[in-house]
């Protein structure tokens, strides 16, 4: 009995070589759930290639809604703690509402048409500006050379840079008094970051400054 069991395990390992954690085998194709992407797929030859392949089921957050934004979804996931997506989603929606209220108040206060045109009322656009403005281009990594720890500036990957910028925005919003609400502070932070102000942008600039100061060690990157 035991022999048979080990034999099957061995066979399994022979066929796949690597144990997968996912329920779905690796030859399953990722689902395409946006309508425009589907249309583009059917127009191309790619559709014929994957026509008879097996497809993974769509995730709970995958939607063909008009109001879907991949980056906002990423932001929701970054805020999320303990898998509480509902709460994270509420926080982001409420802060977007607050962005609109802040911007509309400024819009009504503005006297000339030119001033009014300059105020961005779309919370999604404000959010994108804010994340773009907080995205760093370099990062510092630690490196031990001759018993001394050096901080070496290296280029940062786009995914990591975006994550860092989102983290800064959230962290900046979390530094608040007890009476203040997180979503209100986040809204204020997003609005000010979209205008290149605020704490999150400052942290990015500080990092850039540090990288500039440590530029003498930059060549350690190749010496490792």
């Amino acid at each position, binding site marked *: 009995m035991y022999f048979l069991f080990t034999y099957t395990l061995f066979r399994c390992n022979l066929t796949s070589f690597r144990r997968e954690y996912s329920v779905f085998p690796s030859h399953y194709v990722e689902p395409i759930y946006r309508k425009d992407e589907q249309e583009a797929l059917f127009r191309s030859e790619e559709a014929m290639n994957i026509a008879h392949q097996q497809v993974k089921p769509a995730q709970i957050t995958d939607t063909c*809604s*008009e*109001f879907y934004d991949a980056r906002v979804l990423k932001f929701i996931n970054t805020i999320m703690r303990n898998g509480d997506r509902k709460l994270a989603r509420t926080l*982001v*929606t*409420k802060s*977007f*509402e607050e962005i*609109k*209220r802040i911007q*509309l*108040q400024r*819009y*009504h206060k503005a006297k000339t*048409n*030119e001033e009014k*045109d*300059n*105020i*961005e*009322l*779309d*919370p999604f*656009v*404000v959010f994108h*500006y804010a994340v*773009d*403005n907080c*995205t760093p*281009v370099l990062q510092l990594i630690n490196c031990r050379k001759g018993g001394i720890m050096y901080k070496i500036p290296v280029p940062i990957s786009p995914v990591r840079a975006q994550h860092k910028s989102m983290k800064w925005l959230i962290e900046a919003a979390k530094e608040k008094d007890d009476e203040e609400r997180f979503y209100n502070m986040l809204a204020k932070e997003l609005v000010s970051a*979209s*205008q*290149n102000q605020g704490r999150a942008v400052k942290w990015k600039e500080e990092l850039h400054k540090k990288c500039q100061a440590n530029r003498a060690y930059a060549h350690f990157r190749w010496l490792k």
Partner: protein
Amino acid sequence: MERTVGQPVNDSFLRRIRKTHSRKFSTVVEVKDEQASQVCSFRTAENNPINHNTDHIARLYTVPIDIQRQIFQNGGLPGKFMKQVTTFQECSIMVRQPAIEIISYLNQVDYTRPVNKYVLYGKFGVGKSLTLCHILHYAFAQKYVLVHIYWAAHWFKDMKEVATSVLSPGCMDLPIDAGLWLKHFKFQNSKLLSELDLKVSKDYVWNQREMTSQGTSILELVEFGMNRIKYACGVIDALIKELKLASIAGKCKTMVVIDGFNAFTSSHTRIRNDNKVMVLPKQVSLAIPFFDITKNDWCNGAIVVTVDQTANKDRRESHLPRYLLGKEGFEHLDPFIPVLIEDYNIAEFDSMIEYYKDRKWIRNITSSGQRELELITNRNPFVLMDQCKFL
């Protein structure tokens, strides 16, 4: 990498020149805002609810700011709607079928007969309270004396203070709530009452030293209640009786507007007496006068109430009046005219979306996006407001 909001567009300079140019040299007369709003499909320039009729259905009218301050100063508009009012910088209410129906009834009814009762009912978030606000504005414009409770459940759920009643033994007083209601009453009616100059018909003795003698004006009675909130509940009782008498005598017209009336017939309150036993609404001295005024033993007035699932704790499964009021409450209000309020129809939904676009609350929404909103919200006004918040 770095971008800022509102980078100047290339042709903005040219556009500016064109704008100033046309303003200076064009012979076209500038269209005024009022005229422009008349052309709008989703707005009506008719801001007086007396003139509202079926032509104005599915359009929004704006409550003038001074009237809004006078009627809704101490509450009346729902909290979330109030937030929209401050953001949009105007208080716009949609003219809808049920409000028009009740207004037309009020215009045609024979006021020498006993009062009619109108009960608004509907699912959560269909706009019962805002319809009530529209009718309240109508009553204000028609110079009714307003007896308005903006949310009856407040008294039994989050009351300020509870005391044993001196004037009506065996009952509980809510002195601070009663004082606040008197303030609300005075705010809404002070102008009208000073014009009408109603007098108290008999002596009311509060204690050995203080009394309100026959012939003092009603406003003085109200002010006494506001200053001595220990007797505020008794003052409300007296005030309601006086208003009934005055209406029967034809001195004034009275409009009773109560939001969430089924809170009065609920079998659960958070009020406890000295022995820590729950007190039902009919043993609360503040509620008794309002039971009294919703009877139909008087004339020259009207009663408009809503029943709401969220107003009571024990009955929440259906929105129908018989279930929400219970047997006793139903028999108390019977006979009444039930008015159902439903979700938006297509025209109302479209004009609401247009209104949101006009107020810049949502921008550049595609037709398929609008269709999606329609499906998600099922055209429910409250859910629509909620869904549009983050767009």
